[in-house]
């Protein structure tokens, strides 16, 4: 028998008779783990959550929660009998009740969990919604409604919490603070959670594992660090928008050669035979700036990102390469100027396809 707390095995996720995501398998090992699903809009992330919640049915595979089969072709436990809570992306508060009453409706189901029961006050403080408790849903902003909806889901202390883009309407200035608080309370209460988002930074921060959904498939399901540094396909690279792929030839156990950049050394995460032609993933932080270097490329664009600049450089073969430079670096380069790259080029993890 499987020891995983939550398990999806070979499931096709459908909505309205149309398959959105195929052959999905992943698991959450321990109770209290938080995982994130990332993917572009309309790819079927919400369908996955709705299916796990019991609002959509499956024709293939199985979904198990706490050792119990909750969905399969033959079995579909009703949503109200699953103890799975879903906070919708859009405002799904009961319009005829105040925010407080909405949250308290969730509290009716609240059972003591792992020796701790969360109170209304704790949840209100956590999400900073005291000022809207007596208001009706139509009297509050979209971001406040989202926080109220999140509060209602959290207070139920479900076996599995599903959050659909939980902070998409929350102001940027407030978002990071809420993320920190959310992570803390999920940890404290040991609430197993699946978060759907299109914000990779949110996913990397909140999730102990991240799944990338692209082209109707779960492409990668791994630790955020691995997803970020060791993407397993060109599609994942493109989706995360983490760099560019340049042609290179493997010249040794730890080296490869690019026509524009010369020799590049580092540790291959996968072995390739000497002489193999590969596509090397070059990320902005892989190259270092050096004014004294003889490898000079032309600046075609410069983006200021607060803590850093991203320079876009043009190689002799007209490839555009992004390079990360701390914004404290005194010598700023203008467009059309030459920009030096430190040699020899060393990349910690060499990712090739």
């Amino acid at each position, binding site marked *: 028998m499987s020891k995983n707390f939550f398990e999806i095995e070979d499931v096709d996720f459908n909505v309205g008779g149309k398959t959105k995501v195929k052959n999905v398998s992943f698991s959450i090992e321990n109770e209290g783990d938080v995982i994130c699903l990332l993917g572009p809009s309309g790819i079927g992330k919400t369908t996955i959550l*709705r299916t796990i*919640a*019991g*609002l959509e049915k499956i024709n293939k595979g199985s979904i198990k929660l706490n050792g119990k089969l909750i969905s399969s072709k033959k079995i579909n436990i*009703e*949503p*109200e*009998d699953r*103890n*799975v*809570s*879903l906070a*919708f992306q*859009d405002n*799904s*508060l*009961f*319009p*005829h*009740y105040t925010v407080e009453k909405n949250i308290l*409706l*969730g509290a*009716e*189901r609240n059972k003591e969990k792992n020796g701790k029961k969360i109170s209304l006050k704790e949840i209100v403080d956590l999400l900073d919604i005291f000022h809207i408790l007596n208001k009706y849903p*139509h*009297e509050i902003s*979209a971001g406040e409604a989202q926080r109220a*909806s999140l509060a*209602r*889901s959290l207070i*139920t202390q479900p076996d599995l919490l599903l959050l659909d883009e939980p902070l998409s309407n929350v102001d940027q200035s407030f978002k990071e603070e809420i993320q920190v608080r959310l992570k803390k309370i999920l940890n404290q209460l040991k609430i197993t959670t699946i978060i759907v988002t299109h914000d990779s930074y949110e996913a990397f921060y909140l999730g102990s594992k991240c799944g990338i959904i692209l082209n109707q498939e779960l492409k990668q399901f791994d630790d955020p660090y691995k997803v970020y540094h060791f993407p397993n396909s060109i599609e994942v690279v493109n989706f995360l928008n983490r760099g560019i792929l340049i042609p290179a030839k493997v010249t040794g156990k730890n080296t490869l050669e690019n026509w524009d950049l010369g020799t590049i050394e580092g540790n291959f995460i996968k072995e390739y035979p000497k002489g193999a032609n590969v596509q090397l993933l070059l990320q902005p932080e892989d190259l270092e700036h050096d004014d004294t270097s003889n490898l000079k490329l032309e600046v075609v664009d410069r983006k200021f990102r607060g803590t850093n600049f991203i320079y876009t450089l043009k190689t002799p073969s007209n490839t555009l390469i992004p390079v990360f430079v701390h914004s404290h670096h005194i010598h700023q380069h203008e467009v059309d100027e030459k920009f030096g790259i430190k040699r020899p080029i060393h990349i910690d993890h060499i990712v090739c396809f």
Partner: protein
Amino acid sequence: MKINFWYIISFIISFFVIIPILTVFSSFFENTSNYYQVLKDTFLLEYIFNSLILLLSVLILTFLIGTGSAYLVSFFEFPFSNFFKWALILSFAVPPYIYAYSLTAFFENYGTAYTILKNLFGEANYNQNIPKFDGLFGVILSISFSLYAYVYILARASFLYQPQNLIDLGKNLGFSKFKTLYSIILPAARPAIVAGLSLVAMETLAEFGAVDFFSINTLTTGIYNSWIAFDDLAFANQLSFFLLLFIFALFILENLSRKKARYHMNSRGGFKQKQKIKLSGGKSLMAFTFCFLVFFLSFLFPLSQMMYWTIKFPENLFDLEIINLLINTLYLVVLSSLVLIIFALISNYGNRVTKDKTLNILSTLSISGYAIPGVILAVAFITFIAWFDESVIKTYGFLSIKKVFIGSILGLVIVYFIRFYSLAYNGIKSGYEKINISVDESSYLLGYSKRKTFMNIHIPFLRNSLLFVLILISLEIIRELPITLILRPFNFETFATTAYISASEDLLEAAAVPSLFLILIATSFILVTSKYILRDQNE
């Protein structure tokens, strides 16, 4: 699809209501008498012509009165504009046939108009100078002044919820008030206005009391005659089927003309109170005069006429068993409204949770009962019961069930149910459409069962809609005439039937007392609940 309690009960309700429509349709497979030939050679064209003229005139008049007054009270401030806002719905309390009695009473030879002139200017031959509002023109006026409130209420609700931005946009583009009205406000309110007009159209084609009183030959009269004079129910049904087709054709045409235009916007900003324009001088006087005239003609005029006669002929007041009539009327209203609300609510919920296409089609068809004239429904019901009694009950040796259903309260309630199910179903449906489906899903995810979601989430949310529908149905039942006349138990009279019987015996003075009581009860219903009818949450 999962067949559960909600599916089965919704299916039964919808199927039950659809039976008369099937009966009407099945008439095409039955033989008709030679009434068809007689009618074709004589009056059929006249019936069709009269029905068309009646329908078109009423639609134009109710559109002008209903939309015009709704526009004035929604967008402008003028003396008594807040009073007119709810006073203009009082016309609901006056059924077309009572309006017809009032018109006749006032303008007939030696009528109230004559008395007024005589008292003012002394004895003279005023009769030839007093205009006569009878015949087709009288019917048009009676129906229009009684039913324009449908258009008024729906148009006003739509105007009220039009975003202020839309109006500001018109100003920004340099539009005049008139151009803003016809190019922005009216098109945006089109679905609401059409919905109001469709109710008016169905009521007009099914109208019995006023048409009968003024002896106008319409398709409804044809239907009635083919049953009464020729005992030809099949042909009566065929005629009503054509009536139905005619109404559907009108609205399909309207729907097609909309193409892909949308008439609502998704707004996250919620309700924003409109800034009313303050009128002054001549414009203010014109707006006031228009609204006052509509209020006077539709409500004050018939009310005062009936009051005048009640005071002038007080003996009629004592001849009637008022308490008895009141109990009978209220008994029918309360019983029928409750049955309708409960079943329409269950059926709506069943449709929502099962999301089944067959059920949806069945429900859509079942609501067309409103378009079938009450006369036809009553007759079809009697025919069905008689057939069932003869061919099923008696065959198996059971006791006859005729008495249980015909000439009984049960029969009356059943036919009211079929007739007004559309109002109840659609009224509740429009309330339900405001509840996003994710609200239900959230409720399930909070551990609420379907029944608990229905009781704890939906019913509190729908409270205002339910009250609104309850009042609408109550008003319809208080005013209803043909079904009550045909199916009521022996010696069981309501204010409506008493008024009709007196009027048909040419005792208009005697009809005044029950008419007055009918108006007063309906008015009190409207006044108590006007804030729900107007759906004016911010006022």
